[in-house]
């Protein structure tokens, strides 16, 4: 059996629907999951009222504010989680270096921004900002994608037929190498990205919840890239190759698929998405630190497991869920418990549904 997310589930829309597939897809999703959405809204309202009872004068506003925070945080987790899940889906390796690729991308972004003077450009106005983003995203994603490919080529390819433990240890080794490299190059402290002037304007206020364009930008980038990835995997030859490699590598090889290239592309895409996450992170939080990706990677990995490892839709969903657990858990129980709660939820999910929320049983190779 193949991990579900790499197998097409939804038939391509036809006719008018093809023109606006995203909206159509959203509508279909919303109508299909109406009870779930209703339940979520009710749950949020109940929590809001509960908070009000706890001595917060504006419980509902606080609720909305935390929902916003959860979405922003979840978007970043989701983008990183997809990288974990794609690699696992295709070669069943937990790529522990992925979180550090995220960090490295943050440093690439600083490098590129300095090299092209993007900070000044972006502060100049909307046109400059768009131009800066159009330079920053492709260049950094390319650099990061290549980093991912090189890591795979150097550290994992030779070990592809080794026992499962060998590449796992190598992955941890690569992680340590990257962290050590960034520590010596960038120092132990937070490195400011100087991106405070990039997106500053306030977008709208809804019921006391103020939402900035920065928040919208983070979530929009994540959702946009996820839809683009879905379209790529469903609609292109390479995507088809990835799906078939995930299903059965040997059979795919027999059918003439270039396995090495397919796996390289998987690493490229996963790393490029981590780079996108790092860029939105550095715009949103304005700093990067050598070991930031370690913890963020572990949490994103948890998101991938929660959604069902190997399942791309699951990783996206898991990312947003983990963001919500982090924020709402922190609000209701106390911030010191946020990370503990994430792992508690993980343990519960794995106990009662070992394959994760959207996962399907993966047969272990002999």
């Amino acid at each position, binding site marked *: 059996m193949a991990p579900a997310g790499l197998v097409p589930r939804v038939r391509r829309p036809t006719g008018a629907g093809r023109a606006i597939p995203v909206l159509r897809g959203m509508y279909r999703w919303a109508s299909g999951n109406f009870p779930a959405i209703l339940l979520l809204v009710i749950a949020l309202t109940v929590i809001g009222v509960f908070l009000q009872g706890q*001595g917060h004068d504006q419980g509902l506003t*606080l609720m909305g*504010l935390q929902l916003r925070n959860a979405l922003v945080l979840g978007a970043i987790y989701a983008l990183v989680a997809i990288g974990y899940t794609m690699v696992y889906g295709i070669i069943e390796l937990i790529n522990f270096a992925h979180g550090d690729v995220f960090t490295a991308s943050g440093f690439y972004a600083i490098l590129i921004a300095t090299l092209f003077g993007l900070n000044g450009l972006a502060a100049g106005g909307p046109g400059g900002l768009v131009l800066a983003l159009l330079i920053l995203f492709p260049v950094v994603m390319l650099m990061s994608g290549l980093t991912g490919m090189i890591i795979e080529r150097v550290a994992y390819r030779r070990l592809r037929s080794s026992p499962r433990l060998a590449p796992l240890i190598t992955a941890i080794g690569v992680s340590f190498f990257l962290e050590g490299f960034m520590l010596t190059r960038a120092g132990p*402290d*937070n490195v400011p990205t100087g991106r405070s002037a990039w997106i500053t304007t306030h977008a709208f206020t809804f019921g006391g919840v103020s939402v900035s364009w920065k928040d919208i930008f983070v979530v929009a980038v994540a959702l946009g890239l996820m839809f683009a990835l879905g379209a790529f995997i469903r609609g292109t030859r390479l995507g088809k190759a990835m799906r078939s490699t995930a299903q059965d590598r040997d059979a795919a090889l027999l059918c003439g698929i270039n396995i090495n290239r397919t796996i390289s592309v998987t690493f490229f895409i996963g790393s490029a998405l981590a780079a996108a996450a790092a860029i939105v992170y550095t715009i949103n939080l304005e700093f990067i630190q050598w070991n930031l990706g370690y913890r963020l990677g572990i949490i994103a990995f948890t998101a991938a497991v929660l959604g069902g490892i190997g399942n791309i839709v699951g990783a996206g969903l898991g990312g947003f869920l983990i963001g919500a657990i982090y924020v709402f858990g922190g*609000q209701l129980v*106390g911030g010191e418990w946020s990370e503990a709660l994430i792992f508690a939820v993980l343990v519960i999910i794995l106990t009662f549904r070992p394959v994760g929320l959207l996962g399907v049983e993966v047969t272990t190779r002999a």
Partner: protein
Amino acid sequence: MYKPKAGALSVAGIASLAVLSACGTTGGGGPTSGGGGALGSCRGTITVATDLPLTGGDATDGPFPAYGAQLAVTQANDHHTLGGCRLKYVSKDDSSVAQNGHDPAQGAANITALAADSSVIGVVGPFNSSVALTEIPIASQNHLPLISPANTNPGLTQPGTNPAIDTNALYKGVHSYFRVIATDTDQAEILAYVATKELSATKAFLFDDQQTYGKGLRLLFQKFYTQDGGTVVGSPASLPSSTKTFSTQLGEASTDGAKLVFFGGTTGNGCGLVRGQMAAAGLTVPFLGGDGCEDTKFLTDAGANANGAEATSAPDVTKLASAATFYSDYAAAYSNLTAPYNDGKKEPYTAYGYDAMNILIKAIKAALINNHAKVPADIMTFRDDVITQLHSVSYDGAIGHTTFDTNGDTTNTGFTLYQVQSGAWATKETLAVDTSGNVSVKS
């Protein structure tokens, strides 16, 4: 000018430099000068020591107060402060390779060795509160005076101020521990005064970094802030040092109408990040922190949002008029050391080490005079005499006027309030708290 004896400085290394005590100086008058007229007939050598972290990660901290203390000994010998008696200086390093810096176990071993030496009359140190926790019981049982230049944790002397420390259990013998630096209790009282009286913040949201220092300071601030009429909104956020996003807690602070955000902790654990993320959460209220926040890392982490943030820290000793002579003496005495150790102003605790040693010497002198210029035959009697003298000592030194209260804490409780202006920390004012807890602005 300072001229070391031939070969005296040939041995490299901080610790070996610090044990030198026979160097002569021909200039500069130390505050302990005044001759030893009453002690002209005194005979013998009395050992004083420092126990400070000198190597590893603490190599930029501990050596400074050690050099300061050594200078005090050198000056006392030059000016015959103890008349015919001489002082011998011993330097101990409480760093270990295993900890790459201060190590409570190493500190305990050092104090045990010093306490067993019947010529040692008192010790300046330790630097870290965690080391003090293991050293105080040993010093207390052996009646060995211990004067810290840098311990700020109130739990070391004030029962009930730190939930992690059983203060009374530390003193198994006599109360031989003193400190020349103000405690976090004093700092918290001053912070609460700033919050309620100067910033007029009626509601505050509190953060801490879960660490002994940060959480301790937050709990003390919370206590004094509510005493002063302030209200704490929401539940205080006690977050691990790995936390990078504070949007959840800042969101709570903004909807609850906080008029102030307080952070108890260090910049390494998020102080600057909290300040930096306040704007995005819609919080335009003042930000207040303790001495863990007042550094350049705060400015980097908070970025463009740093401006306006306020934090208290120990007074800038380098700018005190009373410390001017000390710093020039230090520069003259240690001009042959490598940077940064040749400049006492590179570390705020240098002058505290100097004053702590001078206070110890002053107490020794008073004890000798009381004993008719004779070194008591029994070291325990001598140590007890010095402890008695320390409790009533009154000393004007580089860091100002020092006396000790019954807990052994200094009554020199000034803290300076700093504010970020145009991207740099600027001095706003200096405040002090008196023994009954009243805060006043000194300058």
